[in-house]
């Protein structure tokens, strides 16, 4: 029985309008989390005082907001955005629901790159060297993973095992630096193993945002290609996608984003794995909506995790990476057990 003309189109448009609404709502949630984060901290500024200090010079409160809390919040937004976006890209091009910067070891290798730059370059702390080195190491692991993925007979599990191997390799290399380093160096890099938002200034944030946000429009433009790549290679090729080129461009951009997200704050796990899945449950698999939804979710999750980490045992601050693991590990188990039938 053929439907009335236009009914499907109307329904399609209505669904998309709903997805757009989700995006707006998520943006509002993110802003909300950022404001909550702004008011929480060891100095009790109160809601009004904290928000007011954003634009009025109120002395100490103004300094706390602008030099301590706002950088933290900005970095949380950038890092969450980047990790979630990179996770979505990795999942699509590797066609693997368990892929993410963390599970593939790409975050660890970017972390190692940064640690190596910090330790070997003590004396001249240069954010360009740190970021560049993190990017190169992330790129190396990305292509290693792509190579494993294209090997014959490679399955979802092979890829994740390869990722774990890479993660171990680079974590131990980072540990080696920690073991050999001087006391000051160790102090400078120990936060890498848990991830910490405490040490960033505006200079680093500028650098990290450039690395995370500049690739965004390029990735977003390829949304339709990602839709097809996430299905299978044959479909993608027959619809005109240059899969080789798209994969490589996407991997380079995702590595850059990953490096930007973590090179100044250390490895934050699971955000890149969890956000795309939750986003897919809300808006479906169309990457035109999936990318922004996942990114906003990622930022909100990191903001929330950071606020929880700062307030739970205040004034003790729990490193952000530990908090996200508490959310992420159960979710990973859930994916492994419950979704198994659906995904592979």
């Amino acid at each position, binding site marked *: *029985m*053929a*439907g009335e*003309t*236009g*009914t*499907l*189109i109307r*329904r*399609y448009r209505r*669904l998309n309008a709903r997805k757009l609404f989700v995006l707006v709502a998520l943006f509002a949630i993110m802003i909300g989390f950022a404001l909550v984060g702004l008011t929480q901290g060891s100095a009790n500024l109160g809601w009004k005082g904290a928000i007011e200090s954003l634009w009025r010079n109120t002395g100490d409160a103004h300094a706390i907001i602008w030099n301590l809390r706002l950088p933290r919040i900005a970095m949380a937004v950038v890092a969450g955005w980047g990790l979630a976006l990179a996770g979505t890209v990795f*999942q*699509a091009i590797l*066609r*693997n*629901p368990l892929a993410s910067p963390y599970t593939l070891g790409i975050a660890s290798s970017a972390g190692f790159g940064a640690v190596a730059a910090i330790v070997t370059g003590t004396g001249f702390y240069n954010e360009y060297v740190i970021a560049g080195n993190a990017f190169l190491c992330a790129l190396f692991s990305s292509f290693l993973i792509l190579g494993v993925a294209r090997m014959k007979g490679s399955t979802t599990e092979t890829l994740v095992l390869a990722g774990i191997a890479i993660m171990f390799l680079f974590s131990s290399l980072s540990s080696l630096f920690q073991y050999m380093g001087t006391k000051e160096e160790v102090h400078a890099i120990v936060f890498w193993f848990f991830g910490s938002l405490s040490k960033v200034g505006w200079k680093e944030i500028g650098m990290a945002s450039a690395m995370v946000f500049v690739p965004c429009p390029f990735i977003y*433009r390829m*949304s*339709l*290609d990602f*839709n*097809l790549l*996430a*299905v*299978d*290679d*044959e*479909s993608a*090729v*027959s*619809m*005109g*996608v*240059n899969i080789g080129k798209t994969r490589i461009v996407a991997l380079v951009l995702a590595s850059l984003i990953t490096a930007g997200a973590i090179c100044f704050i250390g490895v934050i796990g699971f955000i890149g794995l969890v956000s795309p899945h939750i986003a*897919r449950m809300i808006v*479906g*698999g*169309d990457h*035109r909506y999936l990318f922004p939804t996942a990114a906003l979710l990622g930022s909100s999750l990191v903001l929330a995790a950071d606020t929880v980490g700062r307030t739970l045992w205040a004034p003790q601050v729990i490193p952000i990476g530990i908090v996200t693991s508490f959310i992420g590990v159960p979710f990973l188990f859930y994916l492994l057990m419950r979704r198994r039938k*659906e*995904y*592979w």
Partner: protein
Amino acid sequence: MLVIRSLGTFYRKRRILIDIDMDLKTGEVLSLVGPNGAGKTTLLKCCVGILTPGEGTICIDDQDVTCLNGNTRARRIGYMPQSSPSRFPMTVFDTVLMGRRSHMAWNPSRHDLEIVETLINAMNINHIAFRNFDHLSGGEQQKVLLARAFAQEAAYILLDEPTSNLDLKHQFELMDMVARMAATESRGVMVAMHDLNLASRYSHRIAMLSGGRICFVGTPFEVLTPDIIKDVYGVTVTVTRVNGHPYIMPSTHIITDRRSNT
């Protein structure tokens, strides 16, 4: 006209296709039949650009297909894969819309959406238009993939076993649709399939592949003869004429053959 000349491919130094010469006219339904591993799927994949031919040419209106960029090729040749394992959720509507990729910039136009809607209605899958593709039955998925191939609006459409998961009624429904599209919109359709009777019923011409070569091309009556089938499949059959089409029925002693194999 889609013209294939002395096409050959290799897979790890083994020849898969040898010296294929074939034409596909617009408005024609041509079936590729032959035993498993004869090279049917490989031939289709070469035409779509999924595999690169080792030798020979594939041309559309004197233009070499392998030299076209992806988008241009996708607008000339539509393709329906055997199956499409999906790992991530995607609605039927979005899946069919993917067929429009080579036509649309980033956002689908009203025209794109109308084409998708028309095809979904024509395939009788409008009741599942917003369900997830991977939650559908195999038959429904094949209809969606066929709609996606038609959405490419290409002059030539290559279908890889489009009816393998369909029951009797849906087989005929789908092939009727294919035949109608070929006739009314004068598209050239190449169909790889196993069911000789279905091929006989719907094809203008049949190409019989065996061991990577095209051994016979012609009308169903020319190709589907007991001798040729015995030769290619090693099966003794009786061919009768039903409703103006050859009808193939395996002879009884095939069953004893099968028993001796197991």
